[in-house]
């Protein structure tokens, strides 16, 4: 089937299979920042935005993206880079495999939560797993980014 969607502000028409998931469609069209690390919607690595809200692209059929606005980290290099700079200054992108999905969630959180507490930050990001860093460095980076102590 053909779907029409906006990907990072560009309107595209893509041919997709009925049982194809968005993460795979995105990767096959060269949006290689989208990573996958599970088959059970558990890891958060595939996080992208649909109409401005973060979601797991591994768990949404590509057909569902018809008429939607999809944003990947390639879509807003400036904002993402601002946080990525802080993250990497902490050394908290160890293998980096989880970073793009994590950054998408952090940017979404910034839009959604005003002055979040540490608990709220941790709660918001629980779905983004990381096996390398133990999460502390990510938290330090977020606090610097949001300007909270």
């Amino acid at each position: 089937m053909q779907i029409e969607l906006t990907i990072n502000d560009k309107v595209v028409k893509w041919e997709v299979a009925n049982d194809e998931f968005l993460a795979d469609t995105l990767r096959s069209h060269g949006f290689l920042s989208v990573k996958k690390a599970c088959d059970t919607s558990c890891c958060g690595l595939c996080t992208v935005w649909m109409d401005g809200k973060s979601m797991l692209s591994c768990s949404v059929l590509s057909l569902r993206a018809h008429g939607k606005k999809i944003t990947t980290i390639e879509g807003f290099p400036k904002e993402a880079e601002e946080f990525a700079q802080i993250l990497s200054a902490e050394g908290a992108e160890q293998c980096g495999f989880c970073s793009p999905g994590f950054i998408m969630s952090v940017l979404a959180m910034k839009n959604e939560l005003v002055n979040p507490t540490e608990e709220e930050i941790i709660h918001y990001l629980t779905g983004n797993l990381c096996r390398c860093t133990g999460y502390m460095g990510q938290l330090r980076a977020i606090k610097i980014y949001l300007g909270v102590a």
Partner: protein
Amino acid sequence: MENVGQSIRKIDGMAIAMGKPVYTEDLAMPNALVVKILRSPHAFAKITSIDISKAESLEGVQCVLTFKDVPNARFTLAGQSYPEPSPYDRLILDQIVRYIGDEVAIIAAVDEKTALLAMKRIKVEYEVMEPVLDFEQAIGHPSVVHPEEDLSCNFEIGLQKENNITSSSHEEVGDVDEEFKRCAVVVEDVYYPQAQAHTMMETYRAFTYLDHAGRLIVVSSTQVPFHIKRQLARALQIPASKIRVIKPRIGGGFGGKQTGAGDVFAGLVTLKTGKPAMIIYDRKETFSATTSRHAMRLKVKLGADQEGFIRAIDMQVLSDTGAYGEHAPTVLSCVGHYTLPLYNKTRAVRFDGKAVYTNKMPAGAFRGYGATQGTFALESTVNRLAEQLKMDPTEIRLKNISKVGETFLTGQGVMLGSSTLDRCIAKGKELIGWEEKFPRRVVSYNKVRAVGMAITMQGSGIANIGTASAEIRLNDDGNFTLLTGATDMGTGCDTILSQMAAEILEVPMEKIIVHAGDTDTSPYDPGSYASSTTYVAGGAVVKAAEELKMKILAQSAAILGVGPQDVEFDGLAVRTLSGDQEISFAKLAELTILGTGKLQLVGYATQGCEVSPPPYIAGFAEVEVDQETGKVDLIDYVAVIDCGTVINPNLARIQAEGGIAQGIGMALYEQVRYDEIGKMATNSFMQYKIPSRKDVGKVRIAFEESYEPTGPFGAKSIGEVVANTPPPAISHAIYNAVGVRENHLPITPEKVFLGMQKL
């Protein structure tokens, strides 16, 4: 120092954080065949017939390979230096399958759907045999996991295949039984650290193709490119010169990627078809058909005199290596090697261990490599001993630990070159608030808080085996290229190695290009494991940089017409001490490479290591236990680390925090479990819980630097030692909270609850 000791950002940090296409899958050719594996549904069986005709005839299927199509040479997937201690006990595909998940057939097709459809059309008949599932029953079990005649070892490892014994290890100094009789206090216990899954976020993957010269190119998410090359040459029975292994950025390894996984299957497909091939293990395969940490049973007996000096240690280990013996002998012996040297007031020490085959997924290398299991058992027993002696657990350590300049009983006279472990313990006590908090405080009617502690060590490289080479060139444009075989797996070794080179060459890091992890161009390096990179590869880089520096000085002096002692480095130039003449590196390069000299300046060094200096950690846990439910919350974890000189504090801190989180997982949440027929019950993140950011509490790291005389800039390792303290420290804290001593990891709320019922 300008570079060493600074928290310099990783040179690949922004690219990986921003999701640039730098990982194996991102680099694969779009037309690569998709490789899938048909896996055994039986724990132990013989394939009596296999019909692939319906699969092969499917449109889009390129090849279907079975045990009839593979070379008949047994090999090991363990990525270790030659001669590998792990037995050559597997074929690429075997007629006997030895665990649920073992490979039965390889399917290559134009796309995944076709490959999966073809897989369904393969008809296999099995003669099912009685599996060995309980590792404590393996020795003497009527079933023999590896009866085959052609299984071989490079040297004696104590293998007795008819008894399912993969390897044996024994070390003994002094008369242990006599010494126990003389001790005032003797304590003893049995521990069961579980199998743990690595769960690196990027699952195992490789893609392969033939290059213009017909050589097999393997782009692999591996920690050990050179070992993969040798392993493939043996398994595929082709000359090693026909293989090139390239490691791109990799999405975590933790030791898992020291064992080969799909490389051999993709490689075989490419050899058979001549076409590019790509294999990606899904998460289920990664959980159930690769490797895990070795599950073990450890019996530890400790004896001390009245004053609390530990005089005798006896450790008996049984290790479950699963269906194949990858890393079985070495993980087993490391249980003792990385724990017994902690305490050197001993008069007798005995270590006895066996690794056994079972019909479960193989165990393999995992960060900590036996030290993790050994530390859990030994340190838990030391905590028990302290209690018996009515001593503070920190005091008994301070009294018994090995100090700088001392030897230890099983250490064959090797002297300890550096340690600040005593300061680590003192600092950790202070940070956690030990004096106020030990052992427990009631915080509400049903909640208690308590603290616990443990210490640990590891090695830095493997003494007398570890080696690494490095080469640094002065390029024609005045920049440098650092060639190393070290394998950055996110841990930042490309960065810290160039920090070291920059420090010696007195140039900014941007002037150094790092090229690593390519068996065609990198100098030999065994890879990133055994906590080797900083210490061994770092040592090679320092030597190579020093050699290049000498050459630059000598060559510049000759050009400037002065003696080598009359010149010095000055920014990106060499100048005379009098300051009246100078030559830039760019000019020097131009003259040496293009001019009359015709000699490109290169520094080259190979670093071996005679010793493996231990890094140390004192770990302290504070937990809160709900006395009604047994639920344990980790409140605070403090780790104070002696890794020698810290080369890059931020990267070292992240290593430590990440390793401790894995240790917390091992202590409280993670366990690879099998059902009664030997099928893995934990093959997704739904059943296998790794810590999320809600589960790790607060982890705090501090460094107590020592200076290791044999290390580059005084550095030792950090990568593995960080995984070891959480299980014993957390278990100790839980015991102090509610009196439950749980020796079977992980310590779940149910176990704590049931334990409390029994008190």
